[in-house]
């Protein structure tokens, strides 16, 4: 027979559910969303989306560099899940420019030579902007092998990125019926030459019986698409780029073999009113 003293210390009583619920409610009832919580979430969403897009672009570049003809399409806002682990590029979403930051279309755009050499010429592009007066940016023209140094020519301006500010297109070289255009745009209020694959952009326009090159820009989607057609293989190479500050970032490249007549509707530049002069 055992007595209560033999049973050891009594088992502690559990807290009652009602009492615990009351204590828990009392502990956190004053906790509310801090000011700016929603804004911080939205900022986090935007930041995460930028990183995903950059990852997609990086993987696309890597795939094309390593695999050649791989076709990879990374549409905005729908980056595949497997891209999440890729490293981030310094990719920023296009910032809509206010109208006052616009480069005045049709305004004075001047190119001046500041030096020259046998194979390299240096120039300065001067543009009058609405918001920050006249701006200038130096740039260098490297002519293609076998051609003499070209004199850059302003082709015109168009809102290619669809952000409300004009991009300026300048022809920097010409070879065998093919022209090469570079682009300048305002980035954070500074006139800047646009880069593509780490070098100043040179879009090929025109061509010969061997092939044609051209491009189009879609201000609604903010994409610039380059086309290269080779008559021999009847192959069409399409590159889709997105504007990212001072860069055009490749998001997809596609190789197509044409099995029909020459796609006449694609043979010219389709970007705003380009060309507006001299081209």
């Amino acid at each position, binding site marked *: 027979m055992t007595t209560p003293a033999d049973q050891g210390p009594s*088992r*502690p*009583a*559990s*807290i009652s*559910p009602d009492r*615990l*619920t009351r*204590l*828990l*409610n*009392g*502990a*956190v*009832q004053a*906790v*509310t*969303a*801090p000011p700016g*919580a*929603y804004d*911080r*979430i939205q900022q*986090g*969403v935007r930041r*995460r*989306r930028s990183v995903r897009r950059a990852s997609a672009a990086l993987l696309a570049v890597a795939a094309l560099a390593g695999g050649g003809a791989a076709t990879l399409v990374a549409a905005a*806002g*729908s980056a595949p*899940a497997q891209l999440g682990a890729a490293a981030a590029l310094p990719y920023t979403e296009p910032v809509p420019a206010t109208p006052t930051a616009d480069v005045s279309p049709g305004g004075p755009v001047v190119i001046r030579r500041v030096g020259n050499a046998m194979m390299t010429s240096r120039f300065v592009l001067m543009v009058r902007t609405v918001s920050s007066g006249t701006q200038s940016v130096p740039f260098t023209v490297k002519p293609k092998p076998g051609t003499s140094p070209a004199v850059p020519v302003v082709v015109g301006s168009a809102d290619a990125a669809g952000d409300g500010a004009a991009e300026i297109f300048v022809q920097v070289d010409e070879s065998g019926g093919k022209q090469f255009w570079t682009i300048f745009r305002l980035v954070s209020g500074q006139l800047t030459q646009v880069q593509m694959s780490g070098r100043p952009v040179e879009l090929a326009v025109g061509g010969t019986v061997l092939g044609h090159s051209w491009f189009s820009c879609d201000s609604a989607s903010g994409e610039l698409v380059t086309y290269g057609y080779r008559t021999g293989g009847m192959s069409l190479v399409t590159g889709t780029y997105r504007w990212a500050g001072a860069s055009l970032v490749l998001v997809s490249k596609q190789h197509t073999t044409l099995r029909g007549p020459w796609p006449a509707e694609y043979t010219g530049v389709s970007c705003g009113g380009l060309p507006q002069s001299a081209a």
Partner: protein
Amino acid sequence: MMIELPGRQGLDDFTALYVRHYDQLLRLAVLLVGDMAAAEDVVQEAFIRVHHALDRRPVASPLAYLRQTVVNLARSELRRRLVRLRHAPRPMPDAASAEEGACVALSRQEVVRALRRIPARQREAVVLRYWADLPEAEIAGLMGVTVGAVKGYISRGMAKLGLLLEDVA
């Protein structure tokens, strides 16, 4: 209180999701991690993740998704905190840690202090049962354990809290 958010329309309702549930989820996170700053981080991250999920596909129950994410992130936060404590230099005598400073207001709450002294699984089960008022089966799904395990966690947690909160009115 579920909101069905199919496709693109879902993203438009994201704000409604925030307005209806942010405070409640923040309170849940406070009870789980015992620290206001960490709780805010956890809940904001959960909302960012649910936004991403809604961007990609319809989510049947965004609230359940959010709650699950908060519980998982709270667990991760506690694990990180444990690692930090293991590797942290010993504080000088009488010097308060940064963590203590961050949650000084909450620490005044005896119940929050008591919750921090019971094992994480027991804390989750007790809070989800008696604060969030979820049925045991749902808690089991959320914690990834059996209903029997949930009952065990709750029973042991209640016993410990009974001792720790003996003198609290």
